[in-house]
């Protein structure tokens, strides 16, 4: 039975190895674990030093979101905005980043929502309002667009991997998460966190 197992597995293994050689396979089941990258920690840290810090980015994007909400209120009457229960969250930067996960962080905002949906007839106007404000904050790349009366959604990316979500169905929501940014503390330090 062991021989049969081995024979059956050899061709499987060959296929697996072929799959793992693919340069696109840099995440699951591969030679390069997701917590690392081919770029050195120092190089990556230097690249991240060119980005605004996590705190600066978060503050900037909260300001953007408030402007969007205010614009939707004044132009379309979408009002009574509330934040989803809970607290904002942070996390490491995930796959592709070898920088220390306490130096490079991502931020998940609590969604801001109004119980007033956008009227479908006003959806294009709403998208224009949101896109106009968002683009001035770097969210200039459209990732998703849903244009259905019962499901409207616009998702925009910034150049750091951040995502702005604006959608409306029963509720209208505005949410964002950032890409990878150094914390204020790491940026001020200016060098990667010493390994313990």
């Amino acid at each position, binding site marked *: 039975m062991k021989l049969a197992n081995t024979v*059956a*597995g050899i061709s499987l293994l060959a296929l697996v190895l072929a799959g793992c050689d693919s340069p*696109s396979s840099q995440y699951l089941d591969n030679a390069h674990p997701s917590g690392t990258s081919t770029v050195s920690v120092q190089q990556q840290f230097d690249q991240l030093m060119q980005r605004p810090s996590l705190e600066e980015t978060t503050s900037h994007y909260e300001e953007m979101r408030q402007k969007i909400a205010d614009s939707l209120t004044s132009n379309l009457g979408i009002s009574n905005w509330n934040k989803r229960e809970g607290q904002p969250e942070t*996390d490491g930067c995930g796959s592709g980043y070898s920088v220390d996960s*306490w130096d490079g962080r991502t931020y998940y905002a609590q969604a801001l929502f109004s119980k007033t949906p956008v009227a479908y007839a006003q959806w294009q106007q709403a998208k224009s309002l949101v896109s106009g404000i968002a683009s001035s904050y770097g969210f200039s790349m459209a990732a*998703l667009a*849903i244009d259905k009366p019962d499901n409207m*959604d616009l998702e925009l990316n910034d150049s750091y991997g951040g995502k702005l979500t604006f959608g409306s169905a029963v509720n209208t929501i505005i*949410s964002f998460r950032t890409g990878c940014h150094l914390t204020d503390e790491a940026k001020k330090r200016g060098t990667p966190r010493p390994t313990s």
Partner: protein
Amino acid sequence: MGFWGMSWGDVTRWTPEPLADLVGVLNNRYNQLLGCADELRATAMPEGWSGPAAEAAAARAAKLADAAEEHAAEGASLRRAAGDVSDAITGVLHGVHEVQSMAAAHEFAIGEDGSITSHAPPPVCTEADPDGAQAARDRQRIEVELQDRVQEVLRSAEDVDNDFCAVLDRILSNHEIDPAGDGRTDLAAAGNSGAALGALSIPAPPPVGATPADNAAWWATLSQNQKNVLIHDHPELVGNRDGVEAWARSQANLVMVPKLRAQLQQQYDTLAAQTAGKGAEALPAILALEDIQHKLDSLDAVDKIMHLPTGGVDPNKQLLTLDVSGHAAKAAIANGNVDTAQHVAVFTPGMNSAVNENMAGYVHDMNNVRDDAQNLLLRYGDGSSVATVTWLGYEPPAVPVGGKIFEAGKSVPDLVGGDAAVDGANKLAQFDQGINASRTSEPHMTALGHSYGSLTTGIALQQNTGVDDAVFFGSPGITDTPALGPIPVNGNPLQHLQVPTGHAYDLAAQGDPIANDVPLIGRYGPAPQSLDGMDQLSTDAAVTLDGQQLTASHGHSEYTKVDTSGAQRVQTTSEYNLSAVVAGMPQYTIPGS
């Protein structure tokens, strides 16, 4: 159902208040005794009095003092025991109420003798459950869990009863303190001695092999004080116990991290000293050192994930499993709160996955899935929460790439034989069952399996886990009976999966050799995307039915991440589909072609 003479009806009539009141009464009496008799031995022998009468008086005074000390010890013992038993009864009654609530919610009744009776009408056949088989399985699972919980509540009640009886027996026999003992100096010391003897033990956990329901019932019968004592003094009994609440598992496993690190470091230092200066004969020891180092690195990785840069524990993560007993470290980490989330997804990664290498990446990607799922829910007026668990509670095989041929616990034979999947599947099934058992209201549960993890997930779901939706992606197949030779496995393994009809999904991206080529061998059964009853979801650059512009996934490794091939990072169709299923909104998924 009786349990060593105690019936379910007896336990339901327990009440902690009389004993709690007794504590106050005993406390007053005890303080009075201390106040009036503390100086008894000294005052019985005034200075300058001697002779036979003085000796007789001294002997009598000593007897009185001994009796007072015995009374003090008895009082303190009873006071302590009454407090502890009152506390323990509160815990037992909590367990009783959990069982009763669960029974009522599912239309079962519990008799005086602990027997379980169903009062539900026959299952209604639905589109998702055309023959009612799923509903029947669910009811059977709940009934078994109720039986297990009743047994555990009775076991805990018996434990409390026995402990209290032991204390009372000692008091009644006037042997609360050792009559020959001479280390006491006053009544307070005697009281302290008695109080220590009056302490109750915490009911022992169910033995190895207990079901998650057993564990859940045991845990539910403990008071908060008892839980806290176990978490901090015996975390090894709590952290990996399926069925225990997630908050408690996480706290216990975090307590274990420094303990395990110290143990592993000691092992490493000892072995390193033994191999110093040796030649080729030390190769096994050198490999063992690498194993230990990987485990130490895994603990560091877990520590990083579980803590914020400020040093505090991340309140949005839970460490549900931590085990370094095998060849490699095993862990499960949740984003969100598994105890309260209305939707819980359990993601099982595949080959080459290791806690020290890619756990952080998986947890991050699952956090993105959670974020997207919660936003989708909120858009539809449902503010319910989502928790996503990355489960590496098994040791998936590795292929020898990147110099990993000697990696700890991972080898080509594991991949060839599929043993790791079968072993992992049993653990995964228990883990899933444990999430349901640990809660009084079961969440909507989704099982996500990637690559070899989809095989593991498929085998696990042959058991009655309570999983509501299953998504396989990059899957080589999901059968538990891999072919032993060149003849492919036939049949539809989906028929053996215990998930509602129409709630199994598959994702197979273009350019993924595991999902598209491996099934040609038929080693793990037919290609999942070809199975009758499997809903194929799109991984293409889809324009959705509702007009969403999504990006294609390509290859074996991009199902749960945004596309980074261009200058921008764009959400892929597969990531969107995973989020929609996890949110319990499969109607918004994008079907495959």
